[in-house]
């Protein structure tokens, strides 16, 4: 029995997997700390589950680093904003903005959208004119003519609009844009495409393409595009804050996006602290309940032991997931319900293990020696029983953490996750529901799963590393 702590630790460090486990944990904590610092706490409700927030993001596109492997050049996602404007008066007063951007790709961008923010006007609401000039000089006049709606009566000038949420025009969805393009095609190429046909074929090929011999808009006009924004104002004190033009790319960011346009990297990052939180809270509570009951029932024996044993038997014979589904479904899908249910089911296994260890530890003669010297049961449990069982309890605590993470992921995958706290399971659930696997959106399915696996693995490796230390008989033969 006499192994010292130093022996134990040196044993732990020899196995490669334990070192890897510890390294992983450090990384996990690092990321979680970063996320906790940089993310707003109501990220779930205010950002992740609010579709408008992701309006300007490309939908269901792979990560941009996939470009390095594929020969086909896909357009990058471009969000072009400027607040530099120039007021000019030639007949009508206008505030002009100029946005230039380069396009080098073999495929057309996914969509375009225009937004304007911080508008202040005193008289009739201004009118916005967009003109797009392609690198080959061909120009689409009045691509968009948007008039700002009249302010509700009873308001006094100056009228301030579009401060929190900007005026946003999703080009593919706007009839005005379709008509403008139809006119441009007619005048420029004499094409007889109707606005409806243009909508079905997608505007992007006309905005960024030029016709080949048979008049098909297949090849992309590469080069520098210019978007001229003229805001026609009717009062010299009118001002415009900034304008934004978004060219929807076919690749995005580090982890790509899902079909709602949500940046998966952001979602996955937020998953780290949530997973660790669920894992640790559940495993700590389970371990505390399990060890207290285990030690008491093991040491006290008699009716107390009998009662705890019977309860453990019942809890141990219940299948975890079905009951979990039932309870979360009934009690409501919030994180605390999930944790309470997981703890309620987790402790019984641990209690039985600890009870058997305590029964064994109780046989040691120094326990009886302490009793004989008048020590109280509490004293003996604290000073003699607990130190012997503590290493095992610690290992079990680490072993429980992945269990909790996996259980929550399973629940989220079944749609029972807590919506206010986006987790990897929920991302996967969305992926599964929208048939991402059949669309081949591997970047939506593989990374969240991998993260669950990696997070669970590092705990399992550490627990496995500690196991021989705690239970010398398991020590690997040299």
């Amino acid at each position, binding site marked *: 029995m006499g192994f010292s702590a130093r022996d134990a630790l040196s044993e732990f460090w020899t196995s490669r997997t334990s070192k890897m486990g510890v390294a992983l944990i450090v990384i996990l904590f690092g990321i979680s700390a970063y996320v906790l610092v940089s993310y707003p706490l109501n990220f779930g409700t205010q950002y992740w589950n609010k579709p408008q927030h992701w309006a300007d993001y490309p939908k269901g596109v792979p990560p941009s680093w996939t470009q390095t492997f594929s020969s086909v050049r896909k357009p990058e996602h471009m969000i072009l904003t400027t607040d530099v404007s120039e007021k000019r008066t030639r007949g009508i007063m206008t505030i002009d903005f100029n946005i230039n951007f380069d396009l080098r790709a073999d495929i057309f961008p996914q969509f375009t959208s225009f937004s304007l923010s911080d508008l202040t006007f005193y008289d009739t609401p201004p009118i916005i004119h967009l003109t797009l000039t392609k690198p080959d000089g061909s120009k689409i006049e009045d691509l968009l003519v948007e008039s700002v709606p009249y302010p509700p009566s009873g308001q006094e000038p100056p009228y301030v609009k579009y401060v929190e949420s900007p005026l946003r025009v999703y080009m593919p969805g706007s009839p005005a844009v379709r008509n403008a393009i139809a006119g441009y095609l007619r005048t420029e190429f004499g094409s007889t495409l109707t606005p409806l046909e243009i909508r079905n074929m997608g505007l992007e090929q006309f905005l960024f393409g030029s016709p080949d011999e048979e008049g098909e808009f297949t090849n992309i006009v590469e080069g520098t595009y210019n978007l001229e924004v003229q805001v026609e104002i009717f009062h010299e004190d009118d001002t415009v804050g900034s304008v934004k033009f978004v060219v929807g790319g076919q690749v995005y960011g580090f982890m790509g996006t899902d079909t709602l346009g949500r940046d998966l990297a952001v979602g996955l990052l937020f998953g780290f602290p949530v997973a660790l939180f669920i894992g640790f809270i559940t495993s700590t509570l389970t371990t505390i309940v399990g060890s207290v009951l285990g030690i008491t029932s093991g040491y006290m024996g008699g009716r107390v032991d009998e009662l705890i044993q019977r309860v453990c038997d019942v809890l141990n014979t219940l*299948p*975890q997931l079905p009951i*979990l589904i039932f309870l979360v479904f009934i009690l409501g899908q919030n994180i605390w319900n999930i944790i309470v249910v997981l703890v309620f089911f987790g402790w019984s296994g641990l209690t039985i293990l600890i009870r058997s260890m305590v029964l064994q530890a109780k046989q040691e003669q120094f326990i009886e020696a302490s009793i004989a010297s008048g020590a109280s049961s509490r004293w003996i449990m604290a000073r003699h029983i607990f130190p012997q069982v503590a290493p095992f309890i610690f290992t079990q605590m680490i072993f429980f953490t992945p*269990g909790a993470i996996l259980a929550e992921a399973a629940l989220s*995958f079944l749609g029972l996750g807590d919506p206010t706290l986006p987790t990897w399971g929920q991302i996967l659930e969305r992926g599964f529901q929208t048939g991402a*696997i059949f669309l081949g959106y591997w970047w939506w399915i593989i990374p969240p799963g991998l993260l*669950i696996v990696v997070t*669970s693995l590092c705990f399992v490796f550490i627990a*496995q590393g500690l196991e021989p230390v705690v239970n010398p008989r*398991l020590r690997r033969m040299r």
Partner: protein
Amino acid sequence: MRLGRSLLIKALSLLMVVVVTLLLMNVILGATGFSDRMLGALVNEQVRVYRQGLLGTIANPDEITRIVAEHEETLRRAYGLDQPWVMRLPQMIWRVMTFDLGEAKSSQTFTGSTLIKDLIAERLPKTVLLITTSVALSAFLGITIGTKIATKPGSRLDRFFSNYSAFSYAIPTWWTGLVFIMVFAVFLRVLPAGGMYSSPPPTESIARFLDLLLHAILPISTLVLALSGAWIYMTRTMVLNTAQQDFVNVARAKGLPENLVMRRYIVRVAAPPILTNVILGLAGSIGGAILTETVFGWPGMGLLYWNAIVTADEGLIIALTFIFTLIYVIARMILEVLYVILDPRVEY
């Protein structure tokens, strides 16, 4: 007889578990007011249909409202909504124990019946087929590999499989399913993506069996990947412990061939503890089956469970939870019987 008595006691305690679970579920249903809401909704639905029927026949509106109110009252008393939920408890439990599980809101069997009882009768064999084959396969793999790596502890193979068990524990079963579908069905298009038979199921029996097999490969391998890790790790640990016992040295001293020593003195003695740990682990694997069926669209109880959740069909969820507990308790019972047979030292 030793076997009979201890099994009887085991059966009694497991039956007691089922009753306790049922009690637990119904108490929770009652306490959270869920069952009142549920039954209330049921009554309103029936009243609405009843009012529809009346509109046609009786003209004067007061008359209709009176009859409908009367009808509603009888319904409420029938469902026991007039007394506190505690009074309904015994009746609820009795109904479930006699498998009168009511109707499902949305799902129905091939034959169109929405009775939960028929739904379960139709779907249960498919789940049992999936679980038993996976558990059997994992057990076989677990024991053969576990024993092999236990003979050479610390070897490369041993380290590989220890890591494998760690992976197998850490990987969510359903995610492996997703990945398998994407890789084998979508990208490589080698295996079917889900379901139990291809859409026009082949009629001729051998082709039908082959088709079933083809569809079953991915779900079963997903489950085996999840279950075999625990089996391997447990077998290795138990075999290593048993190998250090004195009677193993005695067996070797007796000049018995090594494989006989391994089979009769190590694995045979380690079998009961391995079984105990597997019994404990079984609670988790049932969950795996539910999710695998959901991912592969395997028309078993798991998929039914998922449909019930998606359509928020309370009645079906409650019934399924109970049935799953029942399956699990029966599975445990079978393993307990095996344990008592394997280990002569057990007398309760």
